[in-house]
């Protein structure tokens, strides 16, 4: 089943064409990594896909529900009620976690399911406990974000996203704000999720991790997809730009 | 927001014709002894307040004492918050076309008050000295107007303006100013309090008259008050109260006409 489909996505900031005719689709259970130099447009693509940024043209579909369709070369967004439903399809894990500092760990995870999805409190609390256990954070329910390490905060934010029971998860450079010794614990959590066949799109600079965990790797540069395919393209890139990027990266 | 404001205004503002009060509202400056001030028991008193009480008694009016902000006294009168300004008001400076003014009840000279040890004995001694006035009083206006030439000789070329008499006295006491230009009644009152620490110069800088100010249309009210006032002059209340509050007898101009 196709979860996400992006067709001919275009986005410009002033004179700067950040995304130029990007098409990408993600099947259920697939893990897609997006790599590329900074400024290549990969974060903008993620923000367009998660409706944090509006695209100028192209199509965006989740489970065949159209969030954005193209009319006369311009992007037309679905009505707010439909977008609200579509937002329930995905979760997003931010580079800077963006936990709510005034909420305890438990409330960070449980408020949206109770408030937005109107689910039963007991059920949500039980699920949150379960998720925290999975994240190795049992017993930290009542802690506040400032009392946690960066790695722990990021795990809470993954739990927060998962509590919404999304069809897929986006990760926006989930380890970039972490000390190198803490990145491992986050990568392990994502690996575990991949093993459970969670559908994920990950923007990352962790090349070996991307190769190991992904079903598909997308290399972006200058607002276009330069190369796309099986994770082996990281070891054996065919495009000249990809080769150059990976060479620089290895150094 | 605009709606809320409009609603509040409609609620709080009432549409009224000219003021028609049941009670007689006397507007006064609560800091103007011995005419109008707060007495030792915490109630307002003073020569003007006691006279007004007697006037209202005679006329069978109910009296409401309304302490006002002296700076906006005429606006307060215009608006009908008070029916008259009766508080050692120098009527010479008020436009008789715009307001109804009573016959003066006190002739009030503007004097110079100084410390006994200041060595100042004449107006010409004030050259180069610091002289304080209460902002907006007749002494202040005088030193900017008719007596500007005198003010030019002061230190700084003008009088030091202070918000109230208390500040003037405090500064005089502290030596921050050398003299105060002030109404005779107030000066005499201060000398009575402090004995011979302070003296008044023999020369006055101006002679002015105190009266009661009403709205222009209230001529009838003014007349009634004047008549009642004259009765109090005749039965001796006027002089008795003047003595009680330590007013200078020479200021009692109604008494003089009476004597003739």
């Amino acid at each position, binding site marked *: 089943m196709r979860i996400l489909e992006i067709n001919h996505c275009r986005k410009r900031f002033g004179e700067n064409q950040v995304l130029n005719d990007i098409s990408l689709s993600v099947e259920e259970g697939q893990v897609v990594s997006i790599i590329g130099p900074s400024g290549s447009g990969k974060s903008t693509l993620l923000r367009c896909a998660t409706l944090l940024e509006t695209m100028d043209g192209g199509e965006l579909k989740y489970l065949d529900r159209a969030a954005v369709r193209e009319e006369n070369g311009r992007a037309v967004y679905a009505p707010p009620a439909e977008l609200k439903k579509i937002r329930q399809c995905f979760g997003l894990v931010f580079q800077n976690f963006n936990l709510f500092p005034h909420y305890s760990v438990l409330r960070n995870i449980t408020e949206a399911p109770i408030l937005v999805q109107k689910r039963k409190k007991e059920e949500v609390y039980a699920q949150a406990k379960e998720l925290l256990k999975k994240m190795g954070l049992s017993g930290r329910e009542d802690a506040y974000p400032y009392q946690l390490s960066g790695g722990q905060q990021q795990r809470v934010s993954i739990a927060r996203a998962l509590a919404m029971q999304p069809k897929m998860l986006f990760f926006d450079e989930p380890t970039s704000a972490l000390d190198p010794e803490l990145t491992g614990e986050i990568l392990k959590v994502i690996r575990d999720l991949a093993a459970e066949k969670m559908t994920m799109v990950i923007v990352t600079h962790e090349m070996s991790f991307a190769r190991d965990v992904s079903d598909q790797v997308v290399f972006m540069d200058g607002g276009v997809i330069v190369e796309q395919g099986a994770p082996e393209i990281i070891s054996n890139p065919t495009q000249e730009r990809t080769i150059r990027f990976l060479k620089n990266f290895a150094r | *927001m605009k709606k809320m404001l409009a609603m509040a205004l409609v609620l709080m503002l009432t549409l009224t014709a000219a003021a028609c009060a049941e009670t007689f509202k006397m507007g006064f400056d609560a800091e103007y002894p011995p005419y109008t001030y707060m007495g030792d028991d*915490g109630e307002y008193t003073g020569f003007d307040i006691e006279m007004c009480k007697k006037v209202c008694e005679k006329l069978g009016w109910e009296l409401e004492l309304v302490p006002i902000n002296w700076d906006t006294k005429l606006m307060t009168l215009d608006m009908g918050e008070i029916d008259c300004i009766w508080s050692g008001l120098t009527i010479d400076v008020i436009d008789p076309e715009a307001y109804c003014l009573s016959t003066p009840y006190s002739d009030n000279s503007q004097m110079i008050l100084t410390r006994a040890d200041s060595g100042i004995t004449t107006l010409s001694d004030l050259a180069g000295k610091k002289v304080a006035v209460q902002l907006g009083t007749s002494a202040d206006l005088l030193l900017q107007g008719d007596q500007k030439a005198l003010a030019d000789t002061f230190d700084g070329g003008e009088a030091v303006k202070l918000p109230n008499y208390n500040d003037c006295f405090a500064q005089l006491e502290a030596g921050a100013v050398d003299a105060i230009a002030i109404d005779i009644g107030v000066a005499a009152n201060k000398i009575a309090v402090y004995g011979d620490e302070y003296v008044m110069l023999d020369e006055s800088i101006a002679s002015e008259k105190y009266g009661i100010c009403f709205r222009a249309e209230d001529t009838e009210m003014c007349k009634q008050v004047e008549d009642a006032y004259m009765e109090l002059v005749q039965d001796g209340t006027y002089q008795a109260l003047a003595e009680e509050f330590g007013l200078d007898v020479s200021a009692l101009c109604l008494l003089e006409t009476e004597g003739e």
Partner: protein
Amino acid sequence: MAKMSLGTMILKMSEGLGTTCGIFFLTLLFSLPLGLVVTLLRRSRLGVVRGITKVYISIMRGTPLMLQLMVVYYGPFYLSKWISKTFDVTFRLRWSGDVLVPIIIGFVLNYAAYFAEIYRSGIESIPAGQYEAAQVLGYSRPQTFLRIVLPQVVKRVLPSVTNEVITLVKDTSLAFTLGCMEMFTLGKSIANSQSKFTPFVIAGVFYYVFNALVAFVMARLERRLNYYR
């Protein structure tokens, strides 16, 4: 000659303290929420609304409170007088009832503008990531504001609000502009008739104790919000 007993002075000034407290509490009661409304209007999507709010704030901050009190109080009367004269009709608008009403309105309009600017700086200091996280989780705009942004704003603006509240305590003496005999004005008239400095000392003590209480309450509030950073 100074014969008023200390007891009478304190008693008399305490009467005025009631008025002072009334002005203080009523002003806070209305201006704290009104400030929030003003901030939201200031951030409105409608340019006209934003513009009007900006002008309102700049007038309130750019002119003395004393003048604003006079405009609130005398404005309607002189305006109606002018209209009567110009259009040959007879009507007069003036405040009826307690003078505290226009005083409170003047104070509230002024303080709401200051609070609005404090709130605005607080709202603008909340990182965009908080809004984005709430949006992705499906919070509606009001939910995001009330549950995510506002509580954090309260914590951030509390020190500035405390400053403003302490200023308000001292500003209450401006009520005399409209002839209201609050504590300080009563003290002044006692000082004047008694030729004594004592009433000012009493006034100073009253203000100081009042502000010490305010500071204490605000410090407790700040501590209560210290459970997170």
